[in-house]
């Protein structure tokens, strides 16, 4: 029961499987390795859900402690990281519930909207558009843009596109169906694209100006839009 089996169809064991076995045998240093490996990702996910730094720090600690205490329940038929993310997502939602007393909090909030599912802005972007902003301006734009997405879209995007989980792993980590993950991912990607276009699109000058004032005096405005 406590032995972890490798994933079905995989000949090679994921390195986490050996680490988890060592933790179960009482080797706490192996858990230290797992915590170091995943703490940044877990913090990122918690921050994206709670949108609060203190809560994200607490969630990260609670999730790792809970995972340690419940390690016997990890069957090894999913990746350890996917299992860990599921715990962190649940802890994050619990934290939100505490903060918004009396209000239901779930991964399904605000996802019924059809807003942003059809592209409207077809302007091309400047080459390497992020280089038109300094680091803090860019971070602010990216943060503000992703915070504007419904939570259920935001987390799917982060797990799939930033963390690199597969669609199936994302579905498992969030307790969603595969079609739901696919639908949310498409809409998250399109909405982010649409919103980032405001900052990153190529600002083409009128033809007469373009021919009269060529390079070095270009019209590429780069102020952060208010």
């Amino acid at each position, binding site marked *: 029961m406590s032995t972890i089996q490798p994933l079905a169809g995989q000949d090679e064991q994921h390195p986490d499987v050996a680490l988890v076995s060592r933790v179960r045998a009482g080797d*706490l240093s192996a*858990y230290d390795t797992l915590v170091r490996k995943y*703490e*940044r990702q877990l913090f990122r996910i918690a*921050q994206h859900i709670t949108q609060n730094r203190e809560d994200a720090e607490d969630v990260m*600690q609670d999730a790792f*402690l809970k995972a340690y205490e419940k390690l016997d329940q990890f069957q090894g038929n999913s990746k350890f990281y996917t299992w860990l993310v599921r715990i962190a997502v649940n802890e994050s939602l619990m934290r939100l519930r505490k903060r918004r007393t009396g209000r239901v909090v779930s991964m399904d909030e605000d996802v019924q909207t059809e807003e942003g599912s059809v*592209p409207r802005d077809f302007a091309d972007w400047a080459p390497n558009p992020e280089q038109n902003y300094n680091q803090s301006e860019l971070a602010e734009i990216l943060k503000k843009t992703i915070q504007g997405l419904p939570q259920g879209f935001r987390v799917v995007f982060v797990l799939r596109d930033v963390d690199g989980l597969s669609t199936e792993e994302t579905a498992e980590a969030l307790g969603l169906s595969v079609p739901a993950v696919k639908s949310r991912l498409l809409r998250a990607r*399109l909405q982010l*694209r649409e919103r980032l276009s405001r900052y990153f699109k190529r600002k083409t000058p009128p033809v007469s100006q373009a021919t009269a004032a060529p390079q070095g005096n270009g019209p590429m405005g780069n102020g952060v839009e208010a």
Partner: protein
Amino acid sequence: MTCTEFLAILDDVIDESIAAETRAEIEVHLRKCGHCEVVLDTTRKTIEIYRCHEIYELPTEVSERLHVAIMTKCKKA
């Protein structure tokens, strides 16, 4: 292929999980449709930008403090 059909498989195009014959249809559509070409290109850039820029940094000193707290709690558990 219409723009609506292209949009329906946009994620598969981005994730490169498209059958060879569909890929050929997509290429034909993109040669004709500047809008879909822009949507594909800028959606790819959107993903790349978020992948390359960590917006919630965890400074080393905070990470160390949290790490010590986690391991202390686990020892006591």
